[in-house]
């Protein structure tokens, strides 16, 4: 864990970072994210969303989107039954077409990890668990680490942690960095996704800063949102994060994954995100190992569009299982 001596104030007052543990963070010695041009980012994201994707390309894109999906249920009213149901849906999204899916993962609270693990045994579908006092992250570090360790002990393959947005906005980057690094350690073999909760960060500059920070601290994935705050994932914010991943790849050769979550509801939106990824990071990232959608409502819309392409008839929502 880093201490005060690891960080130093520069002459102009910005914090310089050295990664807390040697080897972690891919060796970026200083923390100096570039500024983000808001207008350019928004225009580029909007222009990439104008592409028309039809017929075979649309079907291929939507099938890929299903395999990239982290099917999510994070409600206070979740039950074992609902989680099992969601696992079935992740394994065979559409009964009538077994070639679809399976989804990449299902994302649940720690209490349901063991249940999901059992329901998904023998499949490729991963179990992701939120941890670190999700969704606010406003608890002592020891509790967050304990939360993480227990989720991993329950069998989680992936941990979705939240950063302390209060600390991020207050400029206490060292705290944010150290918490991510410590959580990474607590994850052991499990993959770590770091939720920035961009809806609370205010500007793209802070989003970029948080992205670089999370990547340097050891994130395997960076993720936009918890889904509990509006706005959640948006194309421009995703673009900013994808550019952070790209710059890190150019600097170190290490590939970080991306997960927009919340707010992606329609098949068309999901295709636009795939375009963003392809245009920013290239084909190498168009795989469930490096790109995920955190969603619950999206899957049914994608299935409805695929059925529409297959049959030529617009589908009714009540023909598709809700969970």
């Amino acid at each position, binding site marked *: 864990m880093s201490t005060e001596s690891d960080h130093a104030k520069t002459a102009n007052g910005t914090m310089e970072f050295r990664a807390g543990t040697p080897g972690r963070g891919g060796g970026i010695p200083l923390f100096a994210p570039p500024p983000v041009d808001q207008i350019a980012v928004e225009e580029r994201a909007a222009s990439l969303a104008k592409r028309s994707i039809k017929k075979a390309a649309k079907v291929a894109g939507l099938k890929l989107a299903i395999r990239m999906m982290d099917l999510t249920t994070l409600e206070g009213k979740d039950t074992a039954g609902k989680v099992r149901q969601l696992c079935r849906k992740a394994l065979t999204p559409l009964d009538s077409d077994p070639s679809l899916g399976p989804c990449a993962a299902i994302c649940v609270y720690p209490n349901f990890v063991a249940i999901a693990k059992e329901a998904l045994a023998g499949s490729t579908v991963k179990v992701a668990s939120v941890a670190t006092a999700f969704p606010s992250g406003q608890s002592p570090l020891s509790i967050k680490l304990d939360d993480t360790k227990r989720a991993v002990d329950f069998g989680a393959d992936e941990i979705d942690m939240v950063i302390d947005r209060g600390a991020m906005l207050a400029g206490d980057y060292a705290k944010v960095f150290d918490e991510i690094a410590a959580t990474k350690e607590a994850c052991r073999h499990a993959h770590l996704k770091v939720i920035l909760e961009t809806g609370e960060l205010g500007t793209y500059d802070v989003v970029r800063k948080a992205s670089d920070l999370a990547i340097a601290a050891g994130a395997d994935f960076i993720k936009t949102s918890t889904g509990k705050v509006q706005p959640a994932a948006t194309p421009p914010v995703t673009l900013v994060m994808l550019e952070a991943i790209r710059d890190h790849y150019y600097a170190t050769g290490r590939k970080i994954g991306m997960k927009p979550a919340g707010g992606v509801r329609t098949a068309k939106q999901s295709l636009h995100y795939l375009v963003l990824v392809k245009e920013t990071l290239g084909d190498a990232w168009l795989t469930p190992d490096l790109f995920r959608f955190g969603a619950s409502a999206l899957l049914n819309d994608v299935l409805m569009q695929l059925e529409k392409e297959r049959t*030529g*008839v*617009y*589908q*009714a*929502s009540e*023909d598709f299982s809700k969970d």
Partner: protein
Amino acid sequence: MDEKKETAVAEASAASTAGVSTKKGGPLATAGSASSKARLRVAKAYKMYVGGAFVRSESGRYFQVKSDAGQTGPDPETVNVPRGSRKDVRDAVLSAKNAQEPWAARTAYNRGQILYRLAEVLESRKDELVMSLARGGLSADDAAREADAAVDRSVYYAGFADKVSALVASHNPVSGPHFGFSVPEPLGVVCVVAPPRPALLGLVSTVLPVITSGNSCVVLASDVDPRTAVVFAECLATSDLPGGVVNVLTGHPHELATQMAKHREVFGMDVWVDDDKLATDVEKAAADNVKRVKTHGLPAVEAWLDESGAQGIGWIERFLETKTIWHPVGL
């Protein structure tokens, strides 16, 4: 205000209305007479009404309608009206689907209040409706008669909203210690292909009974006089009716009716066309999800004015589903 200023303002306004330029006039002075100045024509863009918003066709297509010869009004002789497409149907059905449950969840009394509010708005904009009908080719008398009937029909269904269930529901005699209730429920999204004439009354007479009971509706307006349907949509938009409960498309039945019939989110079709082949195509396409389909020829315009035939609880019942419940009798 002191006296001097007041006088100056009065002089200036007098000068401007008289068209006389004065040095003292300032910004209120005008060079020429305001009354004789030629105004730019403010032409209206006729748009479809989908999800509570006025939209052009996503396809960008238009068709043209002509004003009847000799008619005067704000429009030029020929105006462009959106020519709805398959995707406009899709968008409208989605809006209708999203609006239907909250609409049905309102109390029947509240739906009645809103329909009565619609009648109020129609009444206050009757001149515009009459003018639009006249530009669509009706004589002034016929137009006025049709607009009156449309307002009255709205009042009629407003009154029915909270009475339908009492009139249609039943307590059934059953053998055994049970109560048997049959209660009406709305179907969901119902698509209407309105008759070409009467453009307003046909639309009102087919759409209102559908929504009175809690269905939502996508209606394809008359393609002979689509402008009046747009004016009607403007009345809907200002009448407390939630967006999406009625969606008004303009376009051609032979392009859109089968698209409506194919859509699986649609549960009922009410089709008024003078084309047997189209009616058959609609019935075939609707069979996919076993929609309730009513196809009709085109009755004479007079028949729509007939209050004994063109309105009634039977019109509401056509798009209701009956739910029967058995409940054990208590001790």
